[in-house]
């Protein structure tokens, strides 16, 4: 008998495919992964602690920085949580604009997902095309809010400024071109047999495990659990829109990939409806300059971000600053299944799995 032994390699925190400061300690037997240990915290910025020393309004730009790839979504979650806490009613038009920019954010985030999956598997060109298309969304954010990535566009009780005129043609042409873009991704990335081979039956996450670990978002839906907060625990004006919640069957990397592609299409549908129904009017509710919610109130508000269920737990002590803010970061919880789905796979599958779990380390480490 040949005596073999396992060895450990550290994937990250400085590694081309860990999407930031993620550290995966892989225990290997040759090319096979015996076990993996996820270490997080390299991008810890103590966002929750910062929140305690900022006023409610001042925390908005920090919330944007949680998930910097889809910055409107965490902002939406935070401002809606505060509005719930203080009982602020948001004007109709602001709600519609919020939906439009958050769905655009979701598309942008999924485009990065597709692109980074492509580059993690070695297809550099696929990434470039995705980023090229995402650029159009970034331009729209620049039009509306003035910043491209970290927009901090939403405000307590509304949004900071109305959409400019140039925004409408841009978003319309983008939505019309979206099917073409997706067709191109299918042609170059998902149609490629090598990529299919590398994704299918890799990193299988069963529905049971997914629920047990608390996985949410596209990763959960890929495992076949039909659960989307926009439909199942609606917030804002989401009940008014018609969209399909795509699900997968096997819960492998391939399903996680396809679910996200289809979500982009559905987001396009929502934006179309929102543009059609958008009323004119106010964009900002009357909010006191110094907001002091009632003492002892406590809310938990969750939104469906591009990564999963993003929740904000706010506790008020009656002052103008929150007593405690907790962020339920979907990336963090999704990452915790990584060891489970990597076990028994190859080293290259770890890369595929990290890419298809689509964590954003800024959000996971907070």
């Amino acid at each position, binding site marked *: 008998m040949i005596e073999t032994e396992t060895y450990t390699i550290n994937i990250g925190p400085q590694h081309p495919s860990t999407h930031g400061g993620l550290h995966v300690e892989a225990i290997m037997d040759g090319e096979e992964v015996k076990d993996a240990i996820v270490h997080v915290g390299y991008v810890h910025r103590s966002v929750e602690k910062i929140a305690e020393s900022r006023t409610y309004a001042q925390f908005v730009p920090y919330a944007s920085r949680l998930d910097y790839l889809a910055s409107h979504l965490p902002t939406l979650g935070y401002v809606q949580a505060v509005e719930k806490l203080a009982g602020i009613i948001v004007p109709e038009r602001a709600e519609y604009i919020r939906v439009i920019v958050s769905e655009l954010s979701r598309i942008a985030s999924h485009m990065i997902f597709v692109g980074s999956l492509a580059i993690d*598997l070695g*297809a550099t060109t696929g990434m*470039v095309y995705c980023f090229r298309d995402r650029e159009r969304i970034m331009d729209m954010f620049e039009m509306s809010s003035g910043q491209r990535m970290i927009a901090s566009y939403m405000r307590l009780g509304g949004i900071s400024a109305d959409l400019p005129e140039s925004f409408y043609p841009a978003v319309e042409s983008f939505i019309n071109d979206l099917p073409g873009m997706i067709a191109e991704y299918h042609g170059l990335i998902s149609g490629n047999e090598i990529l299919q081979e590398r994704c299918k039956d890799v990193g299988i996450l069963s529905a049971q495990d997914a629920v047990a670990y608390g996985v949410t978002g596209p990763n959960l839906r890929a495992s076949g659990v039909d659960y989307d907060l926009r439909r199942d625990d609606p917030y804002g004006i989401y009940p008014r829109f018609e969209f399909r919640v795509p699900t997968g069957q096997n819960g492998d990397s391939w399903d996680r990939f396809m679910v996200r592609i289809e979500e982009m299409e559905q987001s396009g549908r929502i934006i179309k409806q929102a543009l059609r129904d958008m009323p004119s009017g106010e964009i900002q509710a009357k909010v006191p300059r110094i907001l002091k919610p009632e003492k002892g109130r406590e809310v938990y508000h969750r939104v469906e971000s591009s990564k999963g269920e993003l929740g904000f737990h706010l506790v008020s002590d009656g002052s103008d600053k929150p007593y405690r803010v907790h962020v339920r970061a979907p990336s963090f919880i999704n990452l915790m299944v990584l060891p489970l789905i990597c076990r028994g796979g190859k080293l290259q599958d770890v890369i595929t799995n990290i890419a298809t779990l689509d964590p954003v380390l800024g959000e996971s480490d907070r």
Partner: protein
Amino acid sequence: MEHLFTNIAQILTSWMVSLGLPPIWADLILLIGQWTIIVVIVTLNVIVLVWLERKISGFIQERLGPNRLGPFGAFQTIADAMKLLTKEDIIPSQADRWIFMTAPMLFIVIAVMLYAVLPLGQGMEVVDLNVGLFYFISLGSLSTICLLMAGWGSNNKWSLLGAMRSVAQMISYEIPLAFSLLGVVMLAGSLNLSEIVTAQNRYWFILLQPVAFLTYFIAATAELNRGPFDMPEAEQELTAGAYTEYTGMRWALFFLAEYTNLVAVSALAATLFFGGGQGPWLPSWLWIIIKTYLIMLVFMWMKWTFPRIRMDHLMSFSWKVLIPVSLANILITGLGIEFFRGMGW
């Protein structure tokens, strides 16, 4: 034009003989001269190739590629080479010094040695070996050892993984590579590369051996460690695989050797399947350059389009698909040759 270089060589030899040198010395000097020219050309060619690859990847990705230094950014690679030359040469303290240091040198030496038998035009090979093809293949498989040395010597797990991958990959892809060439050899009836070119006077072997070309092309991509088979390097997984610990000029030598190998393999494909230097109007050495470059363009195009294949798929693809196909190709070629011979062709 056609005999430009051969004529120059002849004139030089006769001039040296007329100076009173014994002919054997004249030949030796000429040989050294040829070698020097090849090494210089290979190095310069790599500079062009790196530039070309960057440009192509740029165009494919709707970028411009290098465009600042010199016309169309042509001097960018030269600047990069300067940068690499002046970089600090780091040898990790835990590395196996000698192995670590000799690996890149050996790699480039082997790569340049491949050119000895390539007919770069009619009558323009350095040595006209009668087992040229055999020489080529056996030298090609030597480069595995260099990668293994680099991986082992670095004393780094990523490097070692990359090295082990490269060994597994190269050994399993050498078999279909050699088998696919056998069909050509059977048709030409010789292992001598110039004779194989002459045998293609009527038909290029790509027409008679399309399957062999396909298997050769795939196996060659794997042998070259180019995408989608760039396992040993695998930037997104192994950071840089076997080359992780190398810096400066040592790393550049690997780079140089990889591109040199690319040229050699493409030139071999041009020789074996596309009639070598045959072609109308232009001199033969120009034709072979054109064909080689065209084949290299396809290699680059593939690299920038495809994702990397997984290691175990890579192995099973070789053993389960390529080897049976190339074996079947040999069988069919043999049957065909017998058949046509029987028909009295």
